[in-house]
């Protein structure tokens, strides 16, 4: 072996900033994510669903209403499972990255963006492309579709934050994935039934305020109400949504729901980031 080059003391002055480091991690992560079979399959399923609904259902808004139910179940499931599985699966590489000169928070931001950007991008494209292909974007559809895409992206972000929160706080991989799936079952499927049962059991009491709290406490409920307010299909809104509209009316209600969605992205994100900063690996 030729004479090795002597070790170089690190030069702190020329170190890149945290934002640059986070972007480096994110860019490589999303390259990895976009090549994942699961993400490609997810995008194809969503694309096929939108395409099919447009061909069968005809008009843009009615296709969106049908697509809503698919998106409300599929997007949280995919973000929760991929989000937690990717953190658990990359544990060894994350440890290697933590041993590199990068602040923990920058790494966390990079990992989160590295998943949210490609997943949200795939979601938006898979929904929007069929509308473009089928020339279904008219004056009626365009604003509704735009809101739909925003809400879908927010769902991706919120549930990726929740997935990260689970994966960072639950050490055991099997338990963590179990918790993520339970969270999806709870918020996506069981929640409405429980709310209805509570409302029925307590029907002699004033339930408007608790119902509003119930709705704000579930990002899937929020997303549904937000879109149905815009699409003006009160019949599909469910109990919490109907109460919500009575309480706030359409424009204010949409504003409140949008802010609450953002809180669902930022809240779990903040707790997950804090836990990531403090955690022993």
């Amino acid at each position: 072996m030729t004479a090795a080059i002597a070790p170089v003391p690190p030069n702190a002055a020329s170190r890149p900033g945290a934002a640059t480091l986070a972007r480096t991690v994110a860019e490589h992560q999303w390259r990895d994510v976009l090549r994942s079979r699961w993400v490609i399959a997810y995008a194809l399923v969503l694309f096929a669903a939108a395409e099919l609904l447009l061909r069968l259902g005809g008009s843009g808004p009615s296709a969106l209403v049908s697509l809503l139910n698919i998106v409300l179940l599929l997007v949280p499931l995919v973000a929760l499972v991929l989000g937690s599985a990717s953190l658990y699966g990359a544990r060894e590489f994350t440890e290697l990255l933590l041993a590199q000169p990068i602040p923990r928070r920058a790494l966390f931001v990079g990992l989160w963006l590295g998943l949210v950007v490609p997943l949200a991008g795939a979601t938006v494209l898979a929904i929007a492309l069929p509308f473009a292909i089928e020339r279904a974007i008219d004056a009626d559809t365009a604003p509704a579709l735009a809101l739909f895409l925003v809400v879908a992206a927010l769902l991706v972000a919120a549930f990726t934050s929740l997935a990260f929160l689970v994966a960072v706080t639950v050490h055991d991989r099997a338990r963590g994935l179990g918790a993520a799936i339970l969270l999806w079952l709870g918020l996506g499927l069981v929640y409405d039934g429980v709310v209805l049962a509570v409302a029925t059991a307590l029907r002699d009491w004033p339930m408007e305020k608790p119902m509003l709290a119930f709705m704000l406490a579930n990002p899937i409920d929020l997303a549904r109400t937000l879109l149905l307010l815009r699409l003006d299909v009160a019949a599909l809104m469910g109990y919490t949504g109907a109460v919500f509209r009575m309480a706030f009316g359409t424009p204010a209600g949409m504003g409140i729901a949008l802010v609450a969605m953002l809180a669902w992205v930022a809240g779990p994100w903040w707790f997950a980031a804090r836990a990531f900063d403090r955690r022993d690996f």
Partner: protein
Amino acid sequence: MIRIADVHKRFGALAVLRGVDLALAPGRVTAVVGPNASGKSTLIKCILGLAAPDRGAITLPDGRDVREPTARAAIGYMPQAPRFPENLTGHEVLAMLDALRPDVAPDGTLLERFSLAAQLDKPVRTLSGGTRQKLSAVVAFRYRPQLLVLDEPTAGLDPLATTIFKAAVLAARDAGTSVLLTSHVVGELQAMADDVAFLLDGTIHFAGPVARLLDRTGARSLEEALAALMQAPTDRIPDAALHGDAPQALRVMNGGGA
């Protein structure tokens, strides 16, 4: 000198490290040996900044704590079980790590010696265990670290790669790098270690040059000396360890453990 001073680490009720004191001298390979669950992995995690000591500190020659992100620019780490993003190619992995250290010109020597370049065009998921291990070694040496942390580095390497790897470790040492090595292959420790640090129940029971260890234990080889350390511990070793049965003492070199 990289100083590990009075490092304590507890996981719940379990005190894993109970006041570890150790100095890693530049230009020396220090083998950290000890039975399973003696605290080796936890000590390594503390050195890498992956786990925060409850008490004590680990500092670089310039006095910086290893928990400062910039301090880790001085450390090269080769983990026991390397994993990389499955869908990235080896070159993409290296490009990512390079981008985290734009202030260092990467050293491609080991990459060349392993003749690895052609294989790094393929996605990591198609690479064999040995090739991943080589990639992991390349990463550890690539940024000319002041401290190399090698955790069971040759598991999975073929004989030729092992030879190349050992030469790289010794060359880095001769160039002034501090090397921390764990291995369950005694021959490997024999070939590379200058110093031995014997860790048991979360404290260092012996730290010093291999020759002094041989002298102290009256053993003829490092293998015998290590067996002696683990079977008939010095007076500093608590009673509980003295009653450990011999077969277990012989198994202690099997690596792993917390």
